[in-house]
């Protein structure tokens, strides 16, 4: 059993092997020669004269013995295991973290992404051989299932680590969390273990352990948080609230619109009047109007009329104008009849004060060229509900969320590219 030593000499190369979790660690892997030494009650026993890739071990991203604070607890790095998926051959590193009060955690480094994992003391619901697990009210979806193998090991461990040890594992995800199920193929005396991992950004790990120059991740990690979806979730309330405010305002506007009809006049314009301003009516606005709707009808027949209206107050202080092109064409081509345009046109002009106004119209018409007159029916209503501004505002409001939604979707597709169980794969 463990002695009071803070290090043990490696029986193979003589280098001191640090003992950081005294009385708990049972396997030690020498940092200088890579040999694995078992601690037993009778002493230490060299197990494998392993030919590890020492150059790999010499360049750990976080050196053994480093300390750093993660999630409010100081952790010491005491062990390192590199694992490889035996089928797909991708590798990842697991750093064993120790704090004598809080026990052990794992810092997993995979594709330049970090996650912080803890063994669970309760079983997730659902079958670990299925496609989904439940834990603390969250659903976790199967991302990868495979067999891992220990490819490199250094430091100390509270379990027996063996070079080339195999382990069945399955990763279930609910970003930024993941649950990993593991069953060691070496032992038959333990059930599946489950660990809960949580995504940690590279910056947080670098700051915690005082390291730098870790390479930047280039892939999306299985449990990397989707910031687009997070932004969408956090902004959802604001967008919904704004939509409600807009709808209520529009509802108020529509319900209080009086749609007061104040003019209907029919006027026939002759060629002589073409392009010159004609007074067609005088109107009285008795209360300030929020808007004025002008509708023109003209019986155009494969022809066009253009009307420019101007409303001018008698005292000359207020005015409004609108230009309308009325055109209607129809016919048949190759036995198919068609039509284009319409015989009426509507415009809305902004608010005008309670005054008396003169209504002028300047007309150009195709019929003038044939020396034919053109008839225009002009109707004016006050305070009509306007929908276009409302729809524009809604569209503007939803534009950014729609963009973020698309980016978020693209991010999810990228995440699942590495998985055999992608919901985006059409089988």
């Amino acid at each position, binding site marked *: *059993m463990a002695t009071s030593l803070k290090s043990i000499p490696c029986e193979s190369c003589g280098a001191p092997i640090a003992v950081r979790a*005294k*009385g708990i660690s049972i396997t030690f892997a020498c940092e200088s020669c890579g040999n694995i030494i078992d601690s037993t009650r009778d002493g230490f026993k060299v197990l494998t004269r392993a030919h590890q890739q020492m150059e790999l071990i010499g360049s750990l991203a976080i050196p053994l013995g480093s300390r750093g604070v993660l999630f409010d607890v100081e952790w010491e790095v005491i062990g390192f295991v590199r694992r490889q998926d035996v089928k797909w051959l991708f590798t990842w590193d697991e750093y064993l973290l120790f704090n*004598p*009060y*809080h*026990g052990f955690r794992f810092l997993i480094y995979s594709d330049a992404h970090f996650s912080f994992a803890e063994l669970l003391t309760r*079983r997730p619901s659902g079958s670990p051989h299925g496609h989904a697990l439940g834990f603390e009210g969250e659903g976790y979806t199967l991302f990868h299932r495979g067999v891992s193998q220990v490819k490199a090991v250094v430091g100390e461990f509270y379990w027996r680590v063996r070079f080339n040890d195999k382990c069945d594992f399955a990763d279930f995800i609910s970003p930024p969390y993941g649950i990993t199920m593991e069953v060691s193929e070496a032992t038959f*005396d333990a*059930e599946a273990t489950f660990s809960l991992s949580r995504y940690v950004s590279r910056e947080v790990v670098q700051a915690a352990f005082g390291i730098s120059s870790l390479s930047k991740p280039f892939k999306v990690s299985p449990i990397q948080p989707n910031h687009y979806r997070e932004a969408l979730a956090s902004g959802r309330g604001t967008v919904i609230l704004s939509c409600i405010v807009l709808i209520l305002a529009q509802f108020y506007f529509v319900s209080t619109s009086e749609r007061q009809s104040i003019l209907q006049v029919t006027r026939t314009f002759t060629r002589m009047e073409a392009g010159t301003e004609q007074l067609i009516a005088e109107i009285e606005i008795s209360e300030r109007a929020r808007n004025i709707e002008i509708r023109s009808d003209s019986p155009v027949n494969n022809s066009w009329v253009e009307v420019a209206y101007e409303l001018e107050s008698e005292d000359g202080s207020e005015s409004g104008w609108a230009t309308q092109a009325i055109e209607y064409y129809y016919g048949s081509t190759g036995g198919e009849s068609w039509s284009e345009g319409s015989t009426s046109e509507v415009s809305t002009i902004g608010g005008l004060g309670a005054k008396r106004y003169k209504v002028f119209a300047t007309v150009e018409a195709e019929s003038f060229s044939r020396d034919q007159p053109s008839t225009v029916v002009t109707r004016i209503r006050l305070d009509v509900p306007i929908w276009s501004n409302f729809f524009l505002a809604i569209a503007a409001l939803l534009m950014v969320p729609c963009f973020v939604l698309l980016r978020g979707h693209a991010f999810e597709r990228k995440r699942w590219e590495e998985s055999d169980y992608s919901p985006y794969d059409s089988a």
Partner: protein
Amino acid sequence: MAISLSCPSCGGELNLHSYTPYVACTYCRHILVKVDEGYRDTNVVSEIAEDMSPFQIGSEGWFEGIHFGLIGRLRLAWEHGFWNEWYAYFDDGRFGWLAEAQGTLAILFEPKNPQVYRTILEDLQDHDQSFLLLGREVEISSVPFVVSDIKKAESIVVEGEMPRMSPLGTFFTAIDMMGPSGEIATAEFIPQPPARRAFVGRYVGFTDLRLSNLRELQGWPRR
């Protein structure tokens, strides 16, 4: 309650919580057994436990609103490691155990209800074929537990007060069961002299126990 006692082996002054059946002397490590007139030396000497445990006899904490104190420790070994079981008194008069394995903590009590006791032990009595038991569901007080771990273990170190003792170095079978929401149950089958015991409790977090009077660990000041 506090009892003062002179070690019959070395004469050292011992302060006990109660007249617990077994006591390991703090000074000479001799294990003493309670007899009618006091304590008698068994002439069995315990090893010294050396590990990074933050606990010690005298550490105190809180569990489900009840204050407790640690009065004894058993250190156990199995083929692939070690763990500690701390014997604790609770202010409501109960005695229980704080199990400490690789930083994972649980508080356990022997069930008062004999039915619970029987369920666990009868369900698991074919423990010698341990691979058959792994993953088996055991219902305890209508909570479904799953057998998660089976090991052959032995006590290697005793400190302080112990309610009972198997001879050091005697192997027994320890079976752990895990519940759906942090429950834990364990069963122990001791071959010589034959005995069976069951415990039920909960996994607990280190900070949840609001511990005090912990051991000072070199290089690890508590913030």
